[in-house]
């Protein structure tokens, strides 16, 4: 992208990664943790796109597409597991976690 130097993207990607990692370490709701993890993956995908642009190669684009696809699969399994856990526990627990979601 003209005008914006490459290290702008590098810094943004690093910030996203750190926010994601901090989210996983600090928050205790599995749902928010999954969202934070997606942020880490997004940071990596952004980095791949940045470098792909810089090198003018398609490999990075392909890689970031695959990250998105795998991320979707991972989220599907993660959410299914969370639903399963809510089902095996009592209702109060579910309400607690729903409150955190907001």
């Amino acid at each position, binding site marked *: 992208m003209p005008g914006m130097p490459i290290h702008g993207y590098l810094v943004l990607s690093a910030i996203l990664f750190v926010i994601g990692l901090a989210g996983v370490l600090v928050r205790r709701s599995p749902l928010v943790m999954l969202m934070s993890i997606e942020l*880490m993956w997004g940071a990596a995908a952004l980095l791949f796109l940045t470098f792909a642009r810089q090198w003018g190669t398609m*490999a990075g684009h392909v*890689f970031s597409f695959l990250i998105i696809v*795998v991320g979707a699969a*991972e989220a599907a*399994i993660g959410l299914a597991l969370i639903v399963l856990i809510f089902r095996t526990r009592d209702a109060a627990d579910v309400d607690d976690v729903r409150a955190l979601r907001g």
Partner: protein
Amino acid sequence: MPVDGSLGLILPEIVLAAAGMVVLAAGLTWRQSRLPGVLAILGIAASAAVLVNRVWGQTAEIWSGTVMVDGYANLFKAIFLAVAAMTVLVSLDYVHRNRLPAGEFYLLLLLATVGMMFMTGSLNLLTIYLGLECLSLASYSLSGMLRKSPRSTEAALKYILIGAVSSGIVLFGMSLLFGVAGSTHLRDIAQALAHNGSLAPVLVAGMMFLIAGLGVKMAAVPFHMWAPDVYHGSPAPVAAFLITASEAAAFGAALRIFLVGLPALADEWRTVFIVLAVISMTVGNITAILQTNMRRMLAYSAVAQAGYIMVGLAVASDRAVSAMLYYLMGYAFMTIGAFAVVILLGRQHPSEEISDFKGLGQRAPFFALALTIFLLSLIGIPPTAGFFGKFYLIQAAVGADLTWLAVVMMINSIISIPYYWGVVRTMYLREADDKAPLPAPAGLRWAAVIGVLGTLALGLFPDTFVQIVSAVQVVPAWISMAF
């Protein structure tokens, strides 16, 4: 695409994935039958037959350098197929008794195996990552298969959260390597570094991310926190599969990434692996002593074993690599074999405490003897696979002027004797409350027999197997010639 015959080179993977689909269809049609398990075994056998007949001995890199077929990849494919076959054997009765959905269970098992085959069968970060995810996604679902058990679902949730974080870390590391080289191929990354030494800081950062991410899969301290919970909570056959195959796949991919892609940073990553190896074996062994549950004990023992195997990665000479491969083979046989005995006992004692093993010497003499052999092998007593594995690793460490590391390894082997031997003593010297013989399903019996034969064959004819493993090259010859 198949014009140049390249499709034939990944036929083992294709056969295995297709077998998975057949297994799934069979499982949906005949819900309460053992057919899916039998079909899974046949699929693995077909894949192994194709591997031996069509692919063995070939070397080629196909599809724009995304898939590498060579002796190293084929050796790992053989190990994974053997592990998968033994896992199906120990699952046959377990799946039926716990009313797990058989089709889905074996499908996921086969797909995880396919993922591992791609993970070690490539020099391209893209394929390694996809293989890793194929393995991970399947194993998350597998570990949560006991849907009614809170233990199993909790294990699965912990596994997916930690696994996804580790994937994110691996990805970030890979993106840094890609940024330096402009390519995801390990050969290009190595060349970029060879031509421009000033890139080293970025590569070191990428390397640290990769070590942390792969360290989670290897269950090396300090990335091992998930391992005891997952190995304890997930279905026992799944634990047996993850503890052996998943760890072997992580080591297989790590060898390729570090030896082919980052040889210029060898001093840096060797230091990190030495530290990880020492703390993994020490923490693993000491924590294992404190365990009263058999599966948690085996989990911490796996952490310690990962530490031993990592000595090979830390030394990284040709000799060390073949010692590692030898150890990984032996480790697969002895650990799945031990799990077969644990699963047998779990049929009557679901808690799987070590004290439940009392009197096993009378109740199931063959299985008690088998478990004794596996545990002796895990300690490292001749003439078992574990002894020669440790012996070769120690030899390699001494050869690389790391005598102190070899001494640490020997001290750790001694620390490990009490907790392994404690199980043997419980089996033979303590009387059982219920002396009735334990009925053994055929699948478990076969798995234990294969485990014993594998452990003893590797131990009695070590030279034959060392010849096989030292024939394979981690770094393909055409890459080393390019420099």
